[in-house]
């Protein structure tokens, strides 16, 4: 079967770009029209993506690559640009366009009345364009450009409410921290460029070079680890996770789109895309697995003690991304992508539902919410679906994807299996804590909550359906997804012990949360009252921010102050000295010019004498 639609996949990113250009050029004149244009363009992209993905599903496993555009040429070296469609990025196209579309519809309600709403839609369109470009980019250099573009969009959108100082600080932090990772990715690209036969950077050549063993093992390790550093920055893995919770200062739809479903998953996508490099190096895979597993449990514990509804979800995102990295590290490629796929839906759902709650009660502190289930039925139900999916309860999507990862871990790496299981327990616990504090119990504030408008609840319902049922594409009884994605028969990953254990962990977490926050038969401070230092430790996020502040930010600021002093006193000083010398000389000249002929005559005489002495004196030297 020919790749009919895949040939036109390059159109998919162009529609959001078009929307961005139109909105930037004519944004001032349009109010609501801008939102419709952006949404319409993404809708077209989404339909196109569906066609492309549908064609892929038809059993045509061959990727389609077009790279005839010669972009840079220097000597006998040329860099081409183009796009590639295979099963992995066809799936990503659908995820990105779908979540983007739903977020845009949702934003109609959420951002209603904001006077910069067209700017908002322009940024979201630009982001969608960049993300789609990143997904279908055919070589690493092109991917890197889009990689930076999504970073810029993230910066712009976190700082969208730039009048809030926290939002500005968060935007800067996100940009700077992810740049640390980007340097790693850039170095990886340079290394690859240096060692690749023919200096080509496209994924097909990388795949071939890696499978032929053209690149030595230790070089592959270095490249893989540097690529992973890039992924750490983008996907908020430890130790570069600190920007992601702060990024929640941005508008909530943005948190759902960029910081839950798509951009942060770009790190996972990058590792999956360059998986050939990682496969060549067991050491790099071990690092990926270790960092991923550690991040999964580390962020999950922080999530328990936070009070901001969005921050809890942000730490949950960090933790789930850690899961995906862990899965990639232990070789569970299909399971990782599957978790990315389901996570995109249920985490976007949770964020959008949280946004609906915030929209209704105008606060983000979960201690000021409570009893909202009666007022906001749709939000409560959809949030419950998302929470159950995230907690890994049968038959919601999160169960199947988490189970796939845990089953692989069970077979390959027992310690990581236990880490994953404990993280799953914590996840279930903080989600049930969140749910019961927000939606159950009695009201704790006197604000009148009301259900959000249809433009916000409809995306919630769509995502809830997806979060509930998307897991069935890859179950132990139906491994079509894995076969489709990797092109090879997946090993049987049904494992009754794992299923039972992960269900027990999830149910136990939920039950504990219910007992503590729903039924209140266990006092809330049962643990924090006895070991307050533990509570403080995780409430303060293990003091990572403080540590970075003391070790990196403060010394760098000190260097900055010193350099500024050097600039002000030394560099500027020299400039001012030159000016002052000229000025002083001029002043002296002005004093001589007193208008008296005799003084002028005297000066002429003196000059004459000096000249004469100088000319005469030359003879004797």
């Amino acid at each position, binding site marked *: 079967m020919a790749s009919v639609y895949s040939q036109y996949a390059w159109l998919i990113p162009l529609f959001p770009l078009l929307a961005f250009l139109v909105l930037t050029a004519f944004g001032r004149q349009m109010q609501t029209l801008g939102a419709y244009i952006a949404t319409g363009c993404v809708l077209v992209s989404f339909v196109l993506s569906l066609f492309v993905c549908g064609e892929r599903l038809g059993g045509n496993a061959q990727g389609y690559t077009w790279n005839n555009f010669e972009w840079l040429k220097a000597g006998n070296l040329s860099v081409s640009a183009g796009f590639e469609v295979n099963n992995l990025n066809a799936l990503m196209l659908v995820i990105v366009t779908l979540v983007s579309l739903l977020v845009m519809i949702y934003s109609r309600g959420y951002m209603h009345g904001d006077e910069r709403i067209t700017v908002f839609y322009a940024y979201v369109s630009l982001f969608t364009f960049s993300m789609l470009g990143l997904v279908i980019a055919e070589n690493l250099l092109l991917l890197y450009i889009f990689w930076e573009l999504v970073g810029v969009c993230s910066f712009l959108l976190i700082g969208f409410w730039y009048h809030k100082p926290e939002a500005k600080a968060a935007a800067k932090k996100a940009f700077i921290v992810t740049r640390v990772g980007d340097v790693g990715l850039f170095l990886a690209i340079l290394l690859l460029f240096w060692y690749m036969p023919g200096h080509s950077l496209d994924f097909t050549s990388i795949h071939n070079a890696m499978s032929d063993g053209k690149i030595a093992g230790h070089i592959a390790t270095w490249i893989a680890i540097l690529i992973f550093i890039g992924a750490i920055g983008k996907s908020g893995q430890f130790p570069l996770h600190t920007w992601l919770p702060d990024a929640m200062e941005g508008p909530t739809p943005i948190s759902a789109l960029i910081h839950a479903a798509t951009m942060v998953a770009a790190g996972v996508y990058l590792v999956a895309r360059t998986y050939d490099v990682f496969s060549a190096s067991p050491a790099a895979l071990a690092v990926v697995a270790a960092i991923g597993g550690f991040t999964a449990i580390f962020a999950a514990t922080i999530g328990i003690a936070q009070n901001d509804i969005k921050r809890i979800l942000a730490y949950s995102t960090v933790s789930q991304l850690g899961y995906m990295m862990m899965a990639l590290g232990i070789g569970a490629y299909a399971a990782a992508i599957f978790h990315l796929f389901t996570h995109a839906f249920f985490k976007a759902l949770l964020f959008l539902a949280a946004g609906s709650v915030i929209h209704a009660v105008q606060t983000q502190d979960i201690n000021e919410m409570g009893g909202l289930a009666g007022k906001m039925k749709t939000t409560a139900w959809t949030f419950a679906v998302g929470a159950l999916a995230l907690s890994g309860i049968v038959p919601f999507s999160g169960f199947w994807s988490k189970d796939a990862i845990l089953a692989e871990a069970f077979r390959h790496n027992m310690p990581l299996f236990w880490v994953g299981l404990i993280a799953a327990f914590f996840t279930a616990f903080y989600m049930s804590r969140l749910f019961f504090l927000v939606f159950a119990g009695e009201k704790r504030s006197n604000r009148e909550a009301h259900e959000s408008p249809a433009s916000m609840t409809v995306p919630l319902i769509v995502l809830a359906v997806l979060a509930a049922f998307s897991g069935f594409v890859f179950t132990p009884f139906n491994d079509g997804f894995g076969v489709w994605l990797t092109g090879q028969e997946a090993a049987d990953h049904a494992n009754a012990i794992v299923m039972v254990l992960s269900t027990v962990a999830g149910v136990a977490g939920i039950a504990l949360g219910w007992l503590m926050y729903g039924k209140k038969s266990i006092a809330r401070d049962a643990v924090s009252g006895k070991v307050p230092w533990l509570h403080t430790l995780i409430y303060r996020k293990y003091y990572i921010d403080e540590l970075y502040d003391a070790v990196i930010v403060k010394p760098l600021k000190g260097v900055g102050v010193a350099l500024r002093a050097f600039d002000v006193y030394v560099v500027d000083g020299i400039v001012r000295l030159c000016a002052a010398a000229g000025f002083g000389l001029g002043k002296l000249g*002005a004093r001589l*010019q*007193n*208008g*008296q*002929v*005799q003084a002028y*005559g005297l000066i002429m*005489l003196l000059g004459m004498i000096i000249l004469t002495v100088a000319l005469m004196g030359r003879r004797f030297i």
Partner: protein
Amino acid sequence: MVITPYLTLGAILFCIGLYGALSKKNAVIVLLSIELMLNASNLNLIAFARFGANPSLTGQIFSLFTITIAAAEVAVGIAILIMLFRNKGTADVNEMDSLKESQQQRPM
């Protein structure tokens, strides 16, 4: 005969004239001093015309011209001085500093 005494006398005359022109307060004396300097140079011209490397009449004729021009110059100078005296009521050279721009217009 040697040229030295003439040149020495010229130099002495010139220096006296220069001293007077630069230091005297009265404008008339300044003018007189300038005449002294001119005559010192005339003396040099004539001395070189007689004892120089190529003795000729040119130097003497040149000094005649100088004397004529000096007379004209003194006539003009005295006329300006008188006009200044009428306007300012003084012949003090130190008061004659209107070449300098006024204090207010001076840039810082």
